């Protein structure tokens, strides 16, 4: 089967630093892949390259066979690659409802309506309410996001991920800053996206318990390159990984 996402010799250098160095990876549709590695290994830069936030110095990125290397972030999102950020990155003074509504409007291509009253768009209203129900924040829909708890803000982020209806979802440390219970909830949510909605998922994560329980495949990065790539048990047994990363 053709890979859904493919990087070919993907490289990003900042001056002399090779943040991502000739990385060639194939991602299969429906797979849940985790990317791990010490700080500065190039994980976030790789995400930035795929989502169009930074432009590659060399190499190519293909999504469903199309070259997306030079596309703007919004064009990449429209192709079906969604991204959820590491630091909670919402619209702080907009309400929960509006935070979820903007991506719904964007996906339905209704954002350029100038004169119609926003609340009159029925299918957008219904879709927004449905998503708020799914993430359990219907009661808090009129509260501005800066007044929410950290956990609820992460829930809004997941609502945004649902609203975008991506084919491929990039998750940047989805359990970052969460307690054990919240972490379990998030793991369940990510698994649900992957299994029930068949969304291909790539995540960067530091919590090894999460990584090894959730992943179909694990990629280990170190100094901008890939040093190991395989199933969780293969990674656990890999000598180089133990040496470079797990420190055993």
């Amino acid at each position, binding site marked *: 089967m053709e890979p859904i996402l493919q990087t070919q010799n993907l490289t990003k250098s900042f001056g002399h630093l090779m943040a991502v160095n000739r990385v060639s990876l194939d991602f299969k549709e429906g797979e849940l892949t985790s990317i791990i590695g010490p700080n500065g290994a190039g994980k976030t830069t790789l995400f930035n390259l795929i989502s169009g936030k930074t432009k590659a110095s060399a190499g190519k990125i293909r999504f469903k066979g199309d070259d997306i290397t030079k596309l703007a972030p919004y064009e990449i999102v429209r192709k079906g690659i969604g991204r959820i950020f590491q630091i909670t990155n919402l619209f702080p003074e907009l309400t929960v409802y509006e935070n979820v509504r903007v991506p719904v*409007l964007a996906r339905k291509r209704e954002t350029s309506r100038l004169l119609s009253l926003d609340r009159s768009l029925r299918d957008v209203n219904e879709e927004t309410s449905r998503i708020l129900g799914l993430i359990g924040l219907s009661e808090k829909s009129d509260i501005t996001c800066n007044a929410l708890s950290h956990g609820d803000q992460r829930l809004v982020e997941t609502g945004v991920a649902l609203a975008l209806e991506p084919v491929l979802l990039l998750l940047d440390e989805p359990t970052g800053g969460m307690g054990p219970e919240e972490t379990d909830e998030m793991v369940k949510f990510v698994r649900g996206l992957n299994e029930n909605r068949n969304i291909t998922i790539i995540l960067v994560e530091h919590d090894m318990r999460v990584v090894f329980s959730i992943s179909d495949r694990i990629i280990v990065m170190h100094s901008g390159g890939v040093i190991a790539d395989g199933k969780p048990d293969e990674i656990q047994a890999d000598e180089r990984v133990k040496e470079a990363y797990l420190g055993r």
Partner: protein
Amino acid sequence: MEKSRSIIWGKNRFYGVALALLALVLVPFFLSDFLVVFATEMLIMVLFALSFNLLFGYTGLLSFGHAAYFSIGAYGTGLFLSRVSPSLLLAFLIGIVFSFIVAFLIGYFCVRLDEIYFAMLTLAFGMMVHAILWKWDSLTGGADGLVGIPRPKFSILLATIEFSSIPGYYYLTLVVVGICVFILWRVSRSPFGLVLKSIRENHERVEFLGIAMRRYRLGAFVISGTFCGVAGALFAPFERSIAPDISFWTKSAEPVFMSLLGGTKVFFGPAVGASLFMYLREIISGYTELWMIYLGAILIAFVIFLPGGILGFISDKLNAGRRGT
């Protein structure tokens, strides 16, 4: 419970707007000519401030060059009336179309930048427009500007309406400003308006939701500049003479003050701010030539003690009351 309250709130607002409109219609019947002239200028400045705030309060972009679109609208209209034809309708259209074109050209470059870089670039373009109006003697009249702009009759089909009188021009201004404010209000409440607010909150994130952020910024810039042009178009036959000082950067600072005074995050905030600004200026300048010092002190006090502006403060209180806190 929450819902029924919001309906009452909505009804109150409807009555509020109806009452305000009625008061505005009755102005010429009860006030002296001097005050009707003052009210006309106030309406023009309200439109200037509200259209500026679509970019400032809603999109989060502080322009320091909005006098450019105001003065292009004014010069376009004034030049057409005094040199080409005394048709008010055509003259307005010319002024508005010119400010639209200029806003598009300048906005195209400015929306690529953020924050202070955006502000500085709009200031630079604004100064260029000022220099052109000031130096292009043969067209604009140079430092003297345009003098004796006619205020002609307005004919539609068989009906002719007289706008040369003070109340006549007041009503024309009221109708045009009313239509423009209604359009701006709809824009602020539209899906487009919501995208503008999300750009203000987090412009990087907007791109990752699949929205071509810059196009929306440019859209806001052009709409804002064009409606400033409408304000300028109304201003030229109102003043009957215009000079390049209406394009100077101090004129660009006025809608900034007005918006901050009234509140940038409430739609009608800048309207309240514009009215208060003009009222204070009128009162204080009657006592002293140093009115800027006093007006400045008042503005500083507002920015420090009422950071949300007057309407921002009131709406916060009302919302707190509604939530029962």
